[in-house]
């Protein structure tokens, strides 16, 4: 597969702080790449840099083989960017906002009307096109941003939190539109919603302090957890001494507690019985065992240190 986006040692600094630390990677054409990571890990900056919204301090970015800085005029026709916060003009209607950007992209009027109607129907905002932006909720504005990005039919679509502010129905519509584009457009998006990431991805990149900490398919990332399970046992009363005693069990990894619930990770189910054996003096109310998902992988306080 050919590369749609290529980064070569791309770095971004802000006030002496490294936001992106010499990142290098390529993205295949038509794939969906999800960027996840803690707050301030560099996800949004990476998207802004990819879209040409901000210039990197060093390194090169190529969109379909063209340098994003040197060939800006051509690359900005190929890339569209959806920011996290809506940036629509509050004194214009949704349609006027979208049409203005479409006109700057020199999209013929009839095609523009057709695309606006089509995408706003798909994203459920057709009824809001004539509304002034200042009267609309952030969720509708966010969907309008997606329509604005899609009307230019970009080859690369970068989205910062695609479903932020959007209700459940809207989220479904957005995900459907993104999944529909799989294979046709390259989509790179950042998200904190791990359920959404699990649904829409060909590849997941976990960012940490401006570096790529992990990179691969969901299956590959979960394989790094070495078949760990997450266990949760709810006791009638869990005192500090019992918690310490249970935490000290050799097969227990990254223990934590929330009220009377004792949560830990373990490589096999035996860890669960080891804990129960130690806790004979305490009444057990409930328990659960589950295989590790993306959420646990990202749960830095409880899992990541021990599972990496």
């Amino acid at each position, binding site marked *: 597969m050919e590369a749609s986006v290529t980064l070569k040692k791309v770095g971004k600094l802000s006030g002496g702080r490294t936001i992106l630390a010499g990142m290098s990677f390529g993205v295949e054409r038509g794939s969906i790449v999800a960027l996840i990571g803690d707050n301030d890990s560099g996800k949004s900056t990476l998207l802004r840099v990819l879209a040409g919204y901000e210039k990197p301090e060093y390194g090169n970015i190529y969109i379909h083989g063209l340098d994003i800085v040197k060939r800006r005029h051509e690359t*900005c026709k190929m890339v569209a960017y959806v*920011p996290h916060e809506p*940036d629509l003009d*509050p004194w214009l209607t949704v349609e006027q906002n979208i049409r*203005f950007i479409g006109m700057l992209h020199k999209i013929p009027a009839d095609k523009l009307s057709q695309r606006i109607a089509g995408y706003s129907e798909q994203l459920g905002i057709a009824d809001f096109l004539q509304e002034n932006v200042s009267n609309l909720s952030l969720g509708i504005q966010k969907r309008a941003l997606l329509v604005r990005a899609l009307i230019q039919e970009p080859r690369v679509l970068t989205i910062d939190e695609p479903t932020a502010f959007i209700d459940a129905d809207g989220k479904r519509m957005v995900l459907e539109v993104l999944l529909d584009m799989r294979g046709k457009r390259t989509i790179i998006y950042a998200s904190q919603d791990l359920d959404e990431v699990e649904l829409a991805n060909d590849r997941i990149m976990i960012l940490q302090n401006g570096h790529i900490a992990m990179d691969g398919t969901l299956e590959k990332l979960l394989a790094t957890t070495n078949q760990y399970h997450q266990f949760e046992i709810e006791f009638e009363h869990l005192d500090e001494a019992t918690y310490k005693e249970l935490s000290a069990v050799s097969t227990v990894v990254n223990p934590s507690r929330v009220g009377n619930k004792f949560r830990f990770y373990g490589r096999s189910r035996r860890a669960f019985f080891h804990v129960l054996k130690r806790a004979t003096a305490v009444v057990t109310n409930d328990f659960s065992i589950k295989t590790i998902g993306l959420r646990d992988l990202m749960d830095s306080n409880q899992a990541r240190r021990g599972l990496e």
Partner: protein
Amino acid sequence: MIWAFLQRRWWLTENRILTTISTALMLPVILYISIVAVMENIIPRSIDGVVYTQWVFPGLIMIIATLGLVPLLYRDFFDLRIHRHVLQPVTLTPITKFEIIAGIIITAIIESVCFVLISLFVLLILIPMSVPVYSYFILIFYVILFNGVMANVLITISLLAERVTTYLIILLSFLMFILFSSGILVDFEFYPPLLSQVFANLPTSVLMAGIRQIMFFNRFDYLSLIYPMIVIVVWFAVNGILYKTKAHQ
């Protein structure tokens, strides 16, 4: 490209057309009461012997033009840039920063000229003028140039200021300076010689002097056109570079 900006300007104007027209109708009345009615008692005639109410007429038009321009550029280059990042998606389209600035300046000037035309009729009712009709057309041309200079200054302030308080202080100080240093309300002869010499060479002053020469003495000075035009072009280029730097793109 310019059509997109014109269309946007029309949409924006359309959404607040009544406010715009009422302001354009009220502004000349307010200026007449607060400035002309008072000043004509202090300065009945200019140094050149023109009746003050007539002499100040082009000055009042320039004030109206500037007041019509300020909110448009404040909104586009300061408020929406700083608070809502509305200009950012425009920078991601295949047009240059220079084209963005040109698009916004040209359309803002067009709106400001329409605003001036409404006010001009009201002002003509309040101040009977005895000048040839063609001089009003030339006046409009000078308004465009005056606004060209002012628009560039306003854009520079908008791009440099990051906080609204800073912006307002700089803007108000600058407007006061232009009002009293460009011969808009008072003839330069009333100023100390050194100040009068410096002020008389400002591009806005040259434009004011130029239009008065045409309106009241039927004399045309090429310099009054060429010099401000050069200033506009150079300043526009500086603003383009400044905007490019500020956008970090």
